[in-house]
């Protein structure tokens, strides 16, 4: 057991400051253990959102020494023992209190995404998919909605005015999951360009770097969506080919 200093941001949208706490840290402790120890022993009014403490619920996102991370998956032993560990709330979302932010923007965005629209089932009433079709979209299902990718994305992190016209990485993962689904028939490319604002992304991959589920957000979701948008809006050859095949670009079921 060793005495460590953890500096936690205390305050609300009106202001606040980092407050140092001395805590006995045991081997194997994660940052969330230490924050909860502070809450239990020294600051019972400390606001912190957490749930599973196992990296599955995505609740305990914070910025630890400036890096967006899950508190429950960040060991204290990662940091030098002789320096304080700084824990701050997420930057991109409005601060409620201490380490808790209001992430409801994400749920508003989620409501605007057209849901799964499956093709008619097979004659026996079943839906069948091959493993190779499912493999690609299963990666996106790993998302735990911790919103670390949303928080680190500079498009909205450093330019809050873009929140109204850019969905953010988590929602591109969701859109990719739907667009690449072998049974889905909807074409969301117009939405991806015009409402979700995929063009704002300059593929600097910070979302991929912070994802605790190691989803290749940029390579496997955002860039493929950008390419699908290029198919529709920036590729006259593709447009002509679709026309010759009798497809109406942008229509439901136009992809394949």
């Amino acid at each position, binding site marked *: 057991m060793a005495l460590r200093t953890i500096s936690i941001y205390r305050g609300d949208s009106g202001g606040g400051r980092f407050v140092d706490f001395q805590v006995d840290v045991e081997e194997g402790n994660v940052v969330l253990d230490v924050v909860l120890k502070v809450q239990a022993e020294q600051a019972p009014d400390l606001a912190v959102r957490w749930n599973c403490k196992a990296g599955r619920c995505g609740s305990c996102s914070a910025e630890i020494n400036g890096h967006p991370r899950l508190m429950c998956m960040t060991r204290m032993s990662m940091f030098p023992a002789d320096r304080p560990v700084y824990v701050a709330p997420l930057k991109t979302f409005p601060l409620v209190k201490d380490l808790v932010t209001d992430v409801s923007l994400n749920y508003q965005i989620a409501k605007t995404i057209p849901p799964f629209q499956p093709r008619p089932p097979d004659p026996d009433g079943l839906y069948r998919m091959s493993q190779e079709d499912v493999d690609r979209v299963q990666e996106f299902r790993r998302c735990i909605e911790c919103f670390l990718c949303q928080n680190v994305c500079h498009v909205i992190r450093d330019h809050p005015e873009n929140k109204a016209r850019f969905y953010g990485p988590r929602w591109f993962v969701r859109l990719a999951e739907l667009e690449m689904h072998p049974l889905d028939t909807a074409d969301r490319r117009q939405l991806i360009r015009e409402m979700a604002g995929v063009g704002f992304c300059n593929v600097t991959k910070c979302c991929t770097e912070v994802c605790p589920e190691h989803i290749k957000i940029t*390579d496997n979701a955002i860039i493929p969506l950008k390419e699908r948008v290029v198919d529709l809006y920036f590729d006259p050859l593709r447009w002509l080919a679709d026309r010759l095949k009798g497809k109406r670009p942008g229509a439901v079921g136009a992809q394949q």
Partner: protein
Amino acid sequence: MAQRQAVAPPHRLGFAATLRRDTWWVEPALVLAALTVFFGYLTVSAFLDNWAFEIGPYLSPVFEPKLHGVYSQWWFSPALLILWGPAGFRLTCYYYRLAYGRSVFMSPPACAVGDLPPRYYGETRFPFILQNVHRYFLYVALVFIPLLWIGAIRGFHDPDEGWGVGLGSFMLVINAALLSLYTFSCHSLRHLVGGGLDCFSCSLYNRTRHRIWSWVSRLNANHRLYAWASLVFIVATDVYIRLVANGHITDPNTWSRF
């Protein structure tokens, strides 16, 4: 124009605003230096057509394919007829967008570090909306790949002395191989060969495309590595061939005249 909104403390907006306590600036600084050195050299090299770039079987990859015989009477370097293709391919490449997005435009310079530009429109407006033409530069790059391999094979055949081998021959082969890996690991190619499909198993045609997509995906995982390796090696090959062609160093080879 939308008003800039504030963020709650302890965060703030503005260039380099961050709570990070590590040396986040090292990586963008190194990338900026490397991009400046390598792309700067290639730009200068393209204009240096009076400094020999060819000897025996070796032709600098900056001047490949060989157009200078045809255009030698023109007032500009023949490399300029060639380099627009590879330059456009790299300029619009998804990896290089990351590299110069962070290190040159500093939007952002590093993750969780404040952007330099106060307003940001990404690739929604001119000039960055032109990034969407990446696949057309891919088509050009795909034409260059066989030409580079022809040049690499020609590196084993001296016009006067016939077949042989030298250090330059191997450098041209490695250069062609790295440029092939870089091109075939392209994100746009990955989309075009199969990534645009929703159903990989629906037909023999789609299953074949899925197989190709899987190969390109495996290469694509190392796209950054190939981007840098091919860039460094094209510079190294150009420097080597020029040094040999201008008599500064001797190429170990089986031919007798240089």
